[in-house]
């Protein structure tokens, strides 16, 4: 596919009048019609509304109007992000039929820059999961191998970008939910610094960990998307007032003199040897470009999974308590007591993983257990944060595998604990609030491997610098589906 069809290419073309937003959209809609019946990335494609929007942009351009930085770029939204008037299901039956009462801050920002919203993508119910198998509606397939998961919870957004249905999508990352599916699907995914992107209009899973982030085919597009989506929102009290730096400018910065740390704890047998090998090769290619590479240690990493699986469920148990069927979503009916009403709505509305986490969190916050669980988890979190503060005094970025292995088969990780371990390399960034990016670094047995860079808070510029350099060194086949190929994935590493 021509690079013109990256988000940046489309925006430049439509903005200059060389491309028509309507035609760009039709190409993508055709691709969705062709591929999505097998991949099932979308929960809902809003064709009419997207066409109407694209036409309006073309007309505005024709009338001499200037278009924004995302002029005519078709974008998909994970279905836990509000677009006013559209259904937001969170992949859950309990929210079926619920229409967003307002635009999320990120949607307002995308629309201000003249993006075209195409539809809502599949996810693990309430973003709880790492495979998108926990969607109450259907699973999504990995475009590289339809028998495998796309990762999760932003699996729909990752698969939609990987298969070229849209050049860019938004996901949300609470423990790796943007980076892990990006890695599994061979696209770029960013988890921004906590507070960089407004959470207003994102249905909360774990408020102190959630961040919205872009999934794109290229690093340049990820930088473009973040530069639009990020920035201070006074209506989100956790949003940072710090002005955004120029991410585009950091893309060409190169890595000469950049100090890259390899955290020992992420390279000690946890990852599949092939995955680790490709990641090390990626880092070596940056070293050849003048980066220095040192081994570092993040000694409290071992507490991350347990801290995360206390804090996230605690917050979730509270955040999800409002889903009682009374004001929206599934409602129990018929002469029940109040308690039965709640029990029926929540019992039938939530899937097993959501129930598991709500119960875990409820238990951990209970009188007599708070200190032992939530209190200790917060202490561990502080130690993990300090590990990163220490290490970023010595290096600029850390490089790790995004996930221990490549995309797994459906139903392969039926045990919750096995699934939880899929996030082992990504959850530390959420606990510490620091940014991370997953960028493809190669294929093994036909499946993409993601390399994760981590940086200090608000140093997304360093992530883009490193990832852009890696992308230039190790070009990656963006789309597994060749034009017109209908039989299945075909991958030809460059």
């Amino acid at each position, binding site marked *: 596919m021509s690079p013109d069809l990256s988000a940046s290419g489309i925006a430049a073309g439509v903005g200059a009048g060389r491309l028509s937003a309507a035609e760009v959209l039709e190409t993508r809609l055709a691709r969705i019609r062709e591929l999505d019946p097998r991949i099932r990335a979308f929960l809902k494609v809003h064709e009419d509304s997207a066409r109407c929007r694209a036409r309006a942009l073309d007309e505005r351009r024709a009338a001499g109007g200037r278009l924004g930085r995302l002029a005519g770029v078709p974008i998909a939204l994970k279905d836990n992000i*509000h677009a006013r008037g559209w259904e*937001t299901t*969170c992949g859950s039956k309990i*929210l079926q039929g*619920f229409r*967003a*009462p*307002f635009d*999320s801050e990120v949607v307002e920002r995308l629309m201000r820059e003249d993006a075209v919203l195409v539809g809502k993508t599949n996810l693990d119910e309430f973003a709880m999961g790492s495979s998108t198998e926990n969607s109450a509606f259907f699973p999504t397939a990995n475009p590289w191998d339809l028998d495998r998961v796309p990762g999760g919870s932003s699996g729909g957004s990752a698969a939609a970008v990987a298969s070229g249905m849209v050049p860019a999508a938004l996901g949300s990352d609470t423990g790796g939910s943007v980076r892990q599916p990006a890695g599994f699907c061979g696209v770029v995914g960013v988890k921004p610094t906590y507070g960089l992107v407004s*959470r*207003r*209009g*994102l*249905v*909360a899973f*774990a*408020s*102190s960990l959630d961040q919205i982030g872009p999934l794109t085919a290229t690093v340049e597009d990820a930088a473009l998307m973040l530069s639009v989506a990020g920035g201070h929102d*006074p*209506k*989100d*009290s*956790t949003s940072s007032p710090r002005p955004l730096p120029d991410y585009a400018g950091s893309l060409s910065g190169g890595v000469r003199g950049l100090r890259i740390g390899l955290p020992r704890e992420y390279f000690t047998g946890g990852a599949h040897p092939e995955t680790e090998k490709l990641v090390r090769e990626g880092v070596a290619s940056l070293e050849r470009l003048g980066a220095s590479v040192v081994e570092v240690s993040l000694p409290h990493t071992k507490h991350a999974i347990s801290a995360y699986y206390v804090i996230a469920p*605690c*917050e979730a*148990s*509270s955040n999800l*308590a*409002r*889903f*009682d069927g*009374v*004001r*929206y979503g599934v409602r129990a009916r018929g002469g029940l007591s*109040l308690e039965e009403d*709640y029990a029926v709505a929540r019992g039938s509305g939530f899937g097993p993983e959501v129930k598991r986490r709500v119960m875990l969190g*409820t238990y951990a*916050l*209970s*009188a007599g257990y*708070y200190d032992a669980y*939530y209190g200790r988890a917060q202490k561990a979190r502080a130690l993990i944060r300090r590990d990163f503060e220490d290490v970023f005094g010595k290096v600029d970025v850390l490089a790790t595998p995004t996930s221990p292995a490549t995309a797994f088969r459906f139903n392969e990780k039926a045990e919750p604990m096995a699934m939880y371990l899929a996030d082992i390399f990504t959850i530390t960034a959420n606990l510490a609030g620091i940014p991370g990016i997953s960028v493809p670094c190669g294929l093994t047995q036909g499946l993409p491997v993601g390399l994760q860079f981590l940086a200090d808070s608000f140093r997304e510029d360093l992530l883009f610098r490193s990832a852009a350099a890696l992308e230039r060194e190790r070009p990656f086949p963006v789309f597994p589906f060749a034009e017109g190929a209908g039989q299945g994935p075909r991958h030809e590493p460059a």
Partner: protein
Amino acid sequence: MSQPDFELVAGLEVHCQLATRTKLFCGCVNGASGAEANTAVCPVCTGQPGSLPVLNKAAVELAFKAALALDCGLAGTSVFARKNYFYPDLPKAYQISQYAEPLAKGGAVVFTAGGVAKKARLQRIHLEEDAGKLLHAIGSRELDCTLVDFNRCGSPLIEIVSEPDIFSGSEAHAFLAALKEILLYAGVSHCDMEKGELRCDANISVRRKGDAALGTKVEIKNLNSFKAVKEALDHEFSRQVGVIEAGGRIVQETRLWDVEKRRTELMRSKEDAHDYRYFPDPDLAPLVAEPRWVEAVKASLPELPAARRMRYTEAFGLSGYDAEVLTSDRALGDYFEGAAKGLAPEAVKTCVNLITTDLLGRLNAESLPVGRCPLAPGALGSLAGLIHKGTLSTKLAKEVFSKAWDTGKAPEALVAELGLAQVSDEGQVREWVKAACSANAQAVADLKSGNGRAIGALVGAVMKLSKGKANPLLVNRRARPTRCS
């Protein structure tokens, strides 16, 4: 054993709705509980998915004002926490409140009960949001379902928790009255109990007199008036003493005050108590009170009732009673000070009398608050001055007061316009007295024979002749028996 062998120990939890324009975490109108149901609502205060709270600075300021007015210790940093429980009036299924780290600790309320000054210490003050309101019936009609009105949901409240320093129903009443006065003065709340702007729960226990340890406490809810608080405490004291005397034990429970039946009834036992699973709200940053901001809030506090009372007795020489009346309402005190400005010290007393009798009487008759009094403080002050200078008799002053109230004209202007100025000219008064004496021979004779009361008839006759304008002091002096000729 009987009641006199026991004493009641109570602590109060007072919820007070802050007088802000908007709610605690969104831009919806605060205090729209009387408006059509669910018209002052938005995605934030109805707990729509994806909505986030933004703290209202004005509410924080009022909460700190309350804490400063009540002499609390302020926390440099306080933390909002979620209090989790399911109920249809709580749309997020958690209330944003403060728990482990409230914005203020300590402080006290001084009040007078049974003529004795007392002090109840405060434990803490914290800021939180209100819940909605459930409707089970409309008028006399029972509903076949429960309706919910979220207009009140998200309104800013402070919860003021006292130490168990209250020992009777009347003390509780006096405590609340003193607290309400301070909150009104500080402009923290309108404190209208009928509108639910001030609500009270009580923790009550009894113990044998002389015991140091507290008894098992029972919480009483639904105390919607000062009277209810007093009655509920008195009732609960008897009930608990009765249980103990019958050989029973008090169990920790929550009871409801039934206004109709005037007794408390079991609401839930300790076993059914909620586990609120408090934890810091991750949607809100800790609340940091910058010392400079706190100083500014402190500077904006008006003089509080106790200090004002003391000043009135010391600086103006008012009686304790007058000072009490004038400070019972901040606006009335302000009015008094406006009226007394520039008055001679002796005229101030006249001014106080005008306020406590004529002004309050008229305001009361017309159900007007002091703030909407049509007579400006300056006008009342000059009226007092006119009386003091002898230009107006007290009687004529009442007429001028009334005319000034109705027409808005200045008292001096009215005096001139109506020719009401008191006549203090000795010659003229002598003429009137002479005329009165000759027309009332019997009264003169009575006076001469020592019946002092007869002077009333003579004074009345002079006033009639002078159309009320004769200076009564001069008339009195002139009409004395020895000089009546």
